């Protein structure tokens, strides 16, 4: 088998552009340009559940004991300061009706400024940073806001095809009031030249949906002599039980 090249992936991405997004904007689990999907997506249709008493209409709860005050500052987890461009990332977590998701857990993980993850399986020749782990957590406030201080991650190579590079991104994990609203996604940085080459970002084939994965640079969130500010708002998909809303 000949080596898979960027040209081949580009062609596959172009063929699938605008396809299958439907209303949700979520990627199809069957998206061949991202080769690891091939054996890891179900072939049978999902079975629909419309039970108003389904356990999944409720969900896990978290509280003050589950986070510490330092968890949302990824630049203060070691004795020294990490290398890289200091940034703050903030936004609101809302449900499909625009209501804030309150007091829920937000988790992030990312590569360091050189594009290296603190993970045994990331062994490409970029330096680790002894002052950066790249993990953070916080709870949303009463208006659904989250906030992290970190450094801008670097792009990194992967082996989907020859010369494959991931655009810089921060991984995010969100909980809503219901397990059905669970979301794991990735935040990208505006204007990254790697966007068109990346099958993971391009798996979101609808242009406007894909744009929702890209943060906005916000000068009013930048702090003088300190950090650059980005805003990324989240809308969680999926139904929730109406009886669960109060008191959460």
């Amino acid at each position, binding site marked *: 088998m000949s080596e898979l090249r960027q040209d081949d992936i580009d062609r596959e991405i172009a063929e699938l552009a605008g396809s299958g997004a439907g209303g949700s904007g979520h990627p199809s689990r069957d998206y061949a340009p991202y080769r*690891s999907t091939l054996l890891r997506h179900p072939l049978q249709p999902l079975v629909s559940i419309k039970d108003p008493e389904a356990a999944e209409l409720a969900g896990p709860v978290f509280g003050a004991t589950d986070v510490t005050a330092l968890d949302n500052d990824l630049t203060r987890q070691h004795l020294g300061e990490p290398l890289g461009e200091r940034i703050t990332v903030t936004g609101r977590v809302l449900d499909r009706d625009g209501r804030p998701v309150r007091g829920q857990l937000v988790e992030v993980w990312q590569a360091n400024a050189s594009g290296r993850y603190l993970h045994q399986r990331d062994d490409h020749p970029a330096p680790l940073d002894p002052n950066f782990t790249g993990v953070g957590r916080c709870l949303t406030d009463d208006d659904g806001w989250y906030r992290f201080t970190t450094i801008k991650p670097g792009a990194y190579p992967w082996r989907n095809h020859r010369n494959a590079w991931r655009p810089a991104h921060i991984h995010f994990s969100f909980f809503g009031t219901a*397990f059905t609203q669970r979301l794991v996604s990735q935040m990208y940085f505006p204007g990254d030249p790697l966007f068109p080459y990346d099958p993971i970002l391009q798996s979101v084939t609808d242009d406007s949906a894909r744009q929702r994965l890209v943060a906005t640079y916000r000068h009013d969130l930048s702090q003088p002599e300190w950090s650059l500010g980005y805003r990324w708002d989240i809308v969680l998909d999926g139904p929730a039980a109406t009886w669960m809303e109060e008191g959460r």
Partner: protein
Amino acid sequence: MNPTPSQTVGPFYGYALPFPGGGDIALGGITVHGYVHDGAGAPVPDALLEFWQADEHGDLRGRPGSLRRDPVTGAVIGRHGVDFTGFGRVATDADGHWTLRTVRPGNGYISVCVFARGLLHHLYTRIYFGQDAFLDALPAERRQTLVAVEERQGVHRFDIHLQGEKETVFLDFG
């Protein structure tokens, strides 16, 4: 409002999402365990499973404290064992194996959310421990993919097949 699209959890969540005791929702009850397989039958060593369930009485309110922290070191010290949090999280090991210790839920099933490298949008399934009207509505040949098999007293086996002949039934709540 238009939802934020899902993206894969990728291969490198391991130092961020799993936490000590993540699979010990409650001790002294049952053990549920199994393997995650891909469409070629190979184990999936980089899947992350999340579990959400009612307590023994069917109470679905959940409680905080799954990730309870030591205020001195910041380390995860986990559930204090008095409240039932209802939430668990386990990464598969190099064999694609996972283990959950919990109690049998009063409503009959444990909800599972599956994440993995190569999975662009998580999948939901359920672990049932016996008969249920929902199972009865499924084709007979697929029904068994949602039912845990009791291997010995208190130890239940539940394998997840992402694709193929033994493909697990996955659920949609939209």
